[in-house]
């Protein structure tokens, strides 16, 4: 497991987490986990661990249970089979749902939107302090949206909207970050900025899990990969997982 992703940058290879050891360095422990909706299993037989500080891409065909797994990890779906242990309470997990689940036309300013990342501090009633406002400004600058605080979120393009959501995650600063197709419909410059941010988080010991479709991106940036297709196909180093997935897809196409 110590090897980096194929073709990963040197910096990436150095920060690849060590083998998960039992105890406090495991963020999620899954054992024969089965998840589903309305009594029907969408995903079964997932066993393994997400180590603290690991960076894992979740890949596989559509309907393979990738988003379902994220919902399970977040505690939004109770396990139907097996077990799942999470080191953190649910409120400590950072989650970026698919962009379509957010109301894009909602009349709220960019600053107010990003300030929702401070919910743990402000709660339902608390105000946003000047220091926190500065923090929001810094987060927006990090994603290349400096000066956008007073604008309506409806004015943002798809890529900018996603940058703003990353800024909210930045402000929230959770130890674990789960992303569901974070780059779908996002322009390339934005993807570059956001990938850099992901790498920064990874370098600072955050655990990153992302549902992704882009093979090349997974290969370049994600040391670990988990392949799902209704069940667990493979879980380990990206360099080992991806070829198997490709072979499987090719076999299915031939069939």
């Amino acid at each position, binding site marked *: 497991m110590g090897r980096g992703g194929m073709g990963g940058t040197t910096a990436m290879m150095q920060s690849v987490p060590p083998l998960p050891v039992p105890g406090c360095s495991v963020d999620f422990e899954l054992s024969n986990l089965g998840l589903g909706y309305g009594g029907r299993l969408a995903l079964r037989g997932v066993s393994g661990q997400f180590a603290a500080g690991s960076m894992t891409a979740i890949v596989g065909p559509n309907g393979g249970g990738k988003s379902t797994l994220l919902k399970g990890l977040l505690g939004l779906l109770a396990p139907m089979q097996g077990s799942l242990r999470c080191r953190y309470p649910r409120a400590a997990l950072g*989650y970026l749902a698919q962009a379509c689940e957010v109301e894009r036309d909602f009349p*709220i300013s960019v600053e107010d939107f990003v300030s929702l990342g401070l919910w743990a501090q*402000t709660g339902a009633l608390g105000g946003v302090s000047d220091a926190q406002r500065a923090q929001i400004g810094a987060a927006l600058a990090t994603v290349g949206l400096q000066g956008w605080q007073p604008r*309506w979120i409806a004015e943002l393009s798809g890529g900018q909207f996603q940058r703003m959501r990353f800024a909210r995650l930045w402000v929230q600063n959770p130890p674990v970050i789960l992303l569901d197709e974070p780059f779908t419909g996002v322009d390339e410059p934005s993807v570059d900025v956001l990938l850099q941010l992901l790498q920064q988080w990874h370098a600072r010991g955050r655990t990153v899990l992302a549902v992704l479709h882009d093979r090349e991106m997974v290969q370049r940036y994600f040391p670990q990969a988990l392949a799902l297709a209704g069940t667990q196909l493979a879980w380990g180093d990206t360099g080992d997982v991806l070829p198997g997935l490709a072979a499987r897809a090719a076999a299915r196409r031939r069939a």
Partner: protein
Amino acid sequence: MMAELLWHPFVDYGFMRRALAGCLALSAGAAPLGTILLLRRMSLVGDAMSHAILPGAALGYLLFGLSLPAMTIGGLAAGMVVAMLSGVVTRYTALREDASFAGFYLISLALGVLLVSLRGSNVDLLHVLFGSVLALDDPTLYLTATIASLSMLGLALMYRPLLMECLDPGFLRLQGRMGSISHALFMLLLVLNLVGGFHSLGTLMAVALVVLPAASARFWLRGVGLQMALSTGIAMAGSVLGLLLSYHAGIAASAAITLSLGGLYLLSLCLGRLGSVRAQRHRPGNDSVSEPMGVSE
């Protein structure tokens, strides 16, 4: 001379002053709720809820006659039962929220009319369906004012979670139980306001004060807080206009108020600043988004 027409009914007649006070209080409570209702795309749910309180109020009426507490408590109970049942049906069956609300409110409406007709005269039925804004007594006024105060207070306390619940429910769900709590409280406030409105405007038109001003405000201002303030203003203006119309033209008060609100809505729809007929026709490009500033790429 003209100006006198505007205020002399209120100066000369106590019942007009009472009607005015009742309508202003109702506007302050109900209109801001409408803004949230619209943001959540639940305006038809408001309609459904206003019908849902009918059987409860009717049952109160059947047992105790035209008694304010009995009809209020009955209406409140019926409204909450329908809200909860619809929530349960939405959660555990394949039916979506709007459809399950529609199912329940049709049943409630029929049940309510049946209950009233069991005992009452047509006059009573008319009172329940169309209210009696020109005959508000002290207890009804106090009730209306209390409900307005409660709903403004409640809205202020739940403002942030309520907005988040519309904007990004998935995010709020991870932060604890505030989402479902604020939703339940919101439904309670909605039912409270509809029950308060039903004494003066009747079940059929109480919801007009919730939905029409909020829908009008949407064509003028963008921010949620601003929309709430403006919708309250529009509701008050519509109420005054309706009362005057009703007085001078000698027409039914609750219908006059609803039509005035409707008129203001149509005006906003045609002339508003944002997304109205006029704004759509004069739009410069195909989009109003100006050049982004400060984007690094």
